[in-house]
């Protein structure tokens, strides 16, 4: 039995990730801003899997609250073995191409908030000498594209952050896994027809928990995205800048 914190727990992706851990008998702390949704998801996990599930309010962008928050989580669970960062948003992407406030908001939630909480978690696990950290980044962070770079840049930064964290913590018995999902069938992609390799959130959750428990460093989910991004990253910049993808 592990004690696992899931930060940003009200997206479908986070919910099914909670299912996967609960199925294995883990004790969970689900944290998010939307407390009504949080309670619904927590009851659901308790009823389906008989798991012990705690909840707490968590705002990714409010970094000044993160230290007290993490202490509260550890106190409630009586310890901590894993942190999964799922919080992320694409809301406001359209405005982020024009307005500083919107681009700041995207970076605050997708990068700064993640880096803040995981820095605290890293120190805790480093001292403990065991634990795991998993961050849900995105294939959008693998190459800057005209259509979503404000989001992609935050996710790309997050990927680099996790990479560095892995380098720092691997000598201390702490595992860091970077998950890079492709298109997931949620409200983020709803209404955009014919996206390639669109995967259900259940599948992405299942495969990413497998990657975490299997001790992977970097996992593309579904795995086909490894190949897709290999090709996309290989396109020369002089050519890529004129492409519309």
């Amino acid at each position, binding site marked *: 039995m592990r004690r696992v914190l899931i930060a940003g727990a009200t997206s479908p992706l986070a919910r099914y990730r909670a299912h996967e851990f609960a199925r294995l008998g883990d004790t969970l702390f689900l944290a998010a801003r939307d407390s009504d949704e949080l309670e619904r998801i927590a009851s659901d996990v308790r*009823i389906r899997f008989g798991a012990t599930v705690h909840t707490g309010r968590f705002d990714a962008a409010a970094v000044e609250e993160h230290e007290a928050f993490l202490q509260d989580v550890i106190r409630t669970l009586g310890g901590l073995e894993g942190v999964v960062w799922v919080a992320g948003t694409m*809301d406001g992407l359209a405005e982020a191409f024009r307005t500083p406030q919107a681009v700041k908001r995207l970076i605050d939630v997708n990068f700064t908030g993640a880096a803040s909480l995981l820095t605290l978690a890293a120190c805790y696990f480093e001292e403990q000498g065991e634990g795991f950290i998993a961050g849900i980044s995105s294939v959008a962070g693998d190459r800057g594209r005209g259509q979503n770079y404000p989001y992609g840049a935050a996710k790309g930064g997050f990927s680099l952050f996790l990479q560095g964290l892995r380098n720092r913590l691997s000598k201390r018995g702490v595992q860091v896994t970077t998950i890079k999902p492709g298109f997931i069938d949620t409200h983020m992609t709803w*209404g955009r027809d014919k996206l390639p390799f669109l995967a259900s959130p259940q599948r992405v959750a299942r495969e990413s928990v497998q990657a975490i428990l299997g001790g992977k460093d970097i996992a593309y989910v579904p795995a086909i995205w490894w190949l897709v991004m290999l090709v996309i990253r290989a396109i020369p910049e002089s050519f890529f800048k004129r492409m519309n993808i």
Partner: protein
Amino acid sequence: MPDTLLQKEITGWGRYPRALCHLYRPERVREVAHTLRQEEPNGFLPRGLGRAYGDAALNSEGGVILMERLDRFLAFDETTGVVRCEAGVSLADIIATFLPRGWFLPVTPGTKFCTIGACVACDIHGKNHHHDGSIGNFVRALTLLLSSGEIVRCSREVNPDIFYATVGGMGLTGITLEVELQLRRVDTAWITVDYVRTRDLDETLRTFHERDEHYLYSVAWLDCVAQGKGFGRGVLMFGKHAQIDHLPAARRQNPFTIPRKREKTVPVDLPEFALNPLSLKAFNGVYYTTHPSREGVLVDYNTYFYPLDSILQWNRAYGKRGFVQWQCVLPYEKGIENLTRILETAQRRRAFPFLSVLKRMGESSGGILSFPMPGYTIALDFPVRNGLFEVLDELDKIVIEAGGRLYLAKDARMSAETFHATYPQLPRWQAVKAQVDPKGLLQSDMERRLRLMEAVK
């Protein structure tokens, strides 16, 4: 929150008719109310997993709210078996979660791939209707989002008029957000089945009347192609939940574990000629011959209740134009004559159903627009062909004269006149609808086709 909208052509399970709808798929409960505030010329309609056959869950040029992502269990009482969950929870999910703990659905239709919200909206019935009535009898309370944005709780005691207008109300009174359902205690995942093969319609109905009351479940498969002496012959399947000591010793350790079935799928639309009188005759003949009378056969719940669920997309077997399922209920008075007239008319007009199912119904749950009434119900599947609807109109006339009615969850084509003539309680429903949805925000293709909010003679 982003507006989630997708314009798409969708259908019911019969794949007839088709409708271009604006699809919304909320992932948070709060988004449903937000969706209802969007501009939509034809209003909104909630939709489950699209298992209603006709146009019950279509809303052309209007909003269709897919409820499938709102599928959380909210409360469960292990001692009483009462579960409270969101409307988008599927029956398959309820079974997977609670059967291992000894609880099963109190009533189930012929598929488990439908949501509990939709089951309430259609007030679905199952093989135990003669014994227990429809699902409405097991719904303790509903939470309903009205078009005004107000959330109301209703039950037999609180807001009873809203409750009875919503059970069987085809999703038109409001968006059901939560359902509180009484589950059924069972000892195993198995059903003990007695099969009785009958020679003709007389024997089929007589057997029903003689044996029905001794079983929780009963249903008959009818050979609708057989004419002359074998007219109305069939196979009756009587079932009860098996108890532990009915199971072979090897299964008693894990009474809720059943063998896994390989799922098959119909990968393409079969061509129209695949279902013709000859192939139907062959199919019906083989089915009849291979199902002799047998007692005490142990069958797992999937095989007994959901034989077609293991063939994914079986609706494609009916070809590109789709199919309609025509299901009526006929009062017992002159029941046998009316059944005979219906089957004979279909045969005479060479409209041969692929599948026909007969069962006895008991009392209504009280849902104002609920389908069931005491009598015989028969369901016939027809691939859509030129001339079919004229035949069905003829069958409708027999139903009207008999004082019966057609099942809205299946219907795709009856006339507004037929509907109004066979659902005499409609004005009562209209009064509640006018009160909970005064602007008529909740609409559907079926509602417009049957002119549900009008007075039609």
